[in-house]
């Protein structure tokens, strides 16, 4: 036997499914890699007939798109899986949700009938819960929106990088009520401002912590507690109204 991978019966992909899931509560501290491991195990537990890659170390066919950073909660994360036998999306949703730990919750599963899903994720709507006096936050927001460019610095894999955070920010407004499905508090505590921010997906990506850095840079904002962030939505951007569409819409139309 030479170093050829063993022969395996590798069934082709019969169907692709897209999964929308949430990362909530304490499990928002899971990293992307943590989620990958949890998902692969949950798919096995749920009995999903996954398609595998060939080779010495076969991997299940899963594509991940644009996951939220560690520590950031999300109501709108997406993965696509390839299976060897057609599955019922709603059964798959139930079984997969039951197989994942509480806090990694499957919201919706659809059969993929369209292409280029990742390209559809053009922008995100973030909710930021900032513990600071309303006045302080409002001044920072005004200063940020009034600037044409706000350079921020972040450590990336390739070292320190300086880039503009302002131009990717399309909308930033304070709202009176949290839009999170399972909020941390039933009533908003005083001295807490909720911002909704729409950020276009650009390269290098402008992440919520970059937005916060920008806010701190232009004003005198100093949050009294770590800022809690939740991605509420991501998908195609409607430029006029600055709103985000459901990225599953094209698949639904064709069904």
């Amino acid at each position: 036997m030479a170093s050829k991978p063993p022969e395996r019966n590798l069934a082709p992909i019969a169907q692709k499914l897209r999964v929308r899931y949430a990362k909530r509560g304490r499990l928002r501290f899971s990293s992307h890699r943590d989620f990958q491991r949890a998902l692969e195990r949950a798919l096995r537990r749920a009995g999903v007939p996954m398609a595998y890659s060939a080779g010495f170390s076969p991997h299940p066919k899963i594509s991940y798109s644009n996951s939220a950073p560690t520590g950031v909660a999300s109501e709108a994360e997406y993965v696509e899986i390839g299976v060897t036998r057609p599955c019922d999306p709603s059964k798959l949703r139930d079984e997969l949700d039951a197989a994942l730990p509480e806090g990694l919750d499957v919201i919706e599963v659809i059969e993929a009938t369209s292409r280029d899903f990742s390209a559809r994720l053009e922008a995100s709507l973030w909710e930021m819960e900032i513990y600071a006096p309303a006045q302080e936050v409002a001044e920072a927001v005004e200063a940020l929106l009034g600037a044409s460019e706000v350079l921020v610095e972040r450590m990336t894999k390739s070292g320190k990088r300086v880039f503009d955070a302002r131009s990717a920010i399309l909308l930033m407004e304070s709202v009176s009520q949290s839009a999170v499905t399972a909020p941390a508090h039933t009533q908003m505590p005083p001295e807490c401002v909720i911002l909704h921010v729409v950020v276009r997906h650009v390269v290098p990506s402008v992440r919520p912590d970059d937005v916060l850095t920008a806010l701190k840079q232009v004003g005198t904002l100093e949050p009294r507690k770590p800022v809690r962030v939740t991605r509420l939505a991501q998908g195609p951007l409607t430029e006029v109204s600055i709103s985000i569409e459901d990225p599953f819409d094209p698949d639904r139309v064709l069904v």
Partner: protein
Amino acid sequence: MTSQTVATSNSDNIDARQSRDRGISVFPQLEALLPLISKPIQYVGGELNAVTKPWDEAIVHWALMYPDAYEVGAPNQGVQILYEILNEQPDVLAERTYSVWPDLEALMREHQVPAFTVDAHRSVADFDLLGLSFSTELGYTNMLTALSLANIPLHAVDRDDHPIVVAGGHAAFNPEPIAQFVDAAVLGDGEEAVLLISNIVKAWINAGRPGGREGVLLELARTGCVYIPQFYDVEYLPDGRIKRVVPNRADVPSRITKFTLMDLDAWPYPKAPLVPLAETVHERMSVEIFRGCTRGCRFCQAGMITRPVRERSITSIAEMVENGLEKTGFEEVGLLSLSSADHSEIGDLARNLADRYEETQTSLSLPSTRVDAFNVDLANELSRNGRRSGLTFAPEGGSERIRRVINKLVSEEDLIRTVTTAYGAGWRNVKLYFMCGLPTETDEDILQIATMAKEVIRAGREASGRRDIKCTVSIGGFVPKPHTPFQWAAQLDHEATDARLHKLKDAIRNDKEFGKAIGLRYHDGKPGIVEGILSRGDRRVGNIIETVWKNGARFDGWGEYFSFDRWMESAQYALEGTGVDVDWFTTRERDYTEVLPWDHLDSGLDSEWLWEDWQDALAEVAVDDCRWTPCFDCGVCEQMDTEIQVGPTGVTDLPMPSPRVSPVLAQ
């Protein structure tokens, strides 16, 4: 809490217990710190199969700690087993806690967040018992960090309404170095031990805590199998050796015996293994296929203290594998034991499991495999499905002579035959594990490792017909351990260890034909000296541990945190005036008459047999395994009134489970 009537002497304590709310989550305080630290996921719990019970539904509350980082502690089988057994009891609640890294420790001190459990994030100080599992002595400083973060007094005698601190695990077979920090130590298998302790503590609580803290400790001591260090005094001779260890109370036994669980099939734990979200050192599901080992390797504490051999039947193993995979979704199953290929039905087991999980991307691994028990069929079964894991063999000694000394009876021919099989079956890299600093060892014994590794490569090239095969030689420093025939031996000092390893390195590197195909991994000898002090230390070593911890020692098993100099400076300070020093504990050979710090703790082994075996080692005489040759009277079976439990059961074909119909398929 249920106590109402109490003796006047301890009523203040009871009132204090009831005066504050116990079992409240500290997560809100902790959560504010999580964005500021690395890998916060390790502190949030919420793993698949984790359990949280309402605080008030239980009478006895256990915090179980593995005193190392989450990534090491979470997969630990011992903690998972006890966690599940305890939580199955209606009146008992158990939660887990692990060591926090220094970044979080600093923030917890700054913001006054107490030590917490990862399950319901309750304060460790609220629990009735804190059980610590010590696989290695290098966790001792982490225990002190945990006690201090929990606001539990470091010294057992200073505690009142605090948790009862119980040490278990292999290191607890000599708990003397931590005697002043623990209330109790338990030797041997934990399953029945935690249930016994829970029952005693429950009865004590229900009775209104008679006698206070001392009352329950006495109840535990009287069982004869829970060691309460504060009830024993150690007296020393003028030369620093121990004169004797005696109970300081009339009603506690003078010797403490270990727990031995018989019939593993009746204890199929863990039934629902935890699936951590964070990455851990073992990303697999483990099933213990047998406990104990009678191969008789003289350096191996695990093999000595876990006798006799008790096999799990292959039917029971297969059920545990099936159930565990279903509940976890892991892709790899580790068949654990001290020497997995020694299971009497390992061949049938591997074949059956490989059949059963064909086409499911599930791989099997045998983490500990003896060279002489491995064969081509087993190799093929292990690599049939899924991914092929690495192969590691442990000849331990480089020369035939030193292998007779340590009683690791594998011949060079066995090794060459085995690696030839492995390379022939497609493996490209084989790891070989050896020790340096064994009793009677010379430079020549260590240099033989290089010769052996070259032979391995030569045979591998022949078997595979390829030049790109590799062999990795890993070397650990030998540390003499209590309850082994080498407990009397002198440990090699770290300078000599390092010098010997350098000679080996040169011998490998300078070889033009094979040098590049052989990888060498070793650590310097310094951590081994610290492990040596802690392994064979007595109560005086406790002062070293406390001093070095106060000087900043944490995570001593991690190279980036370990400081040899800090340990040596602390030892010098802490041992001042005792007449003994680090060398006295480590590089000094003991004689038969010396009272060893653990002599009052009974591992079942007959001390005369241990001494004879030590003499046989020095005479280079090997002893065979009692599973296939007559009993050699190590004392365990007679002492514990047990016997080895091995197969074969006669079952060769396991029923195939009915194929699972995927619940997600479309009609």
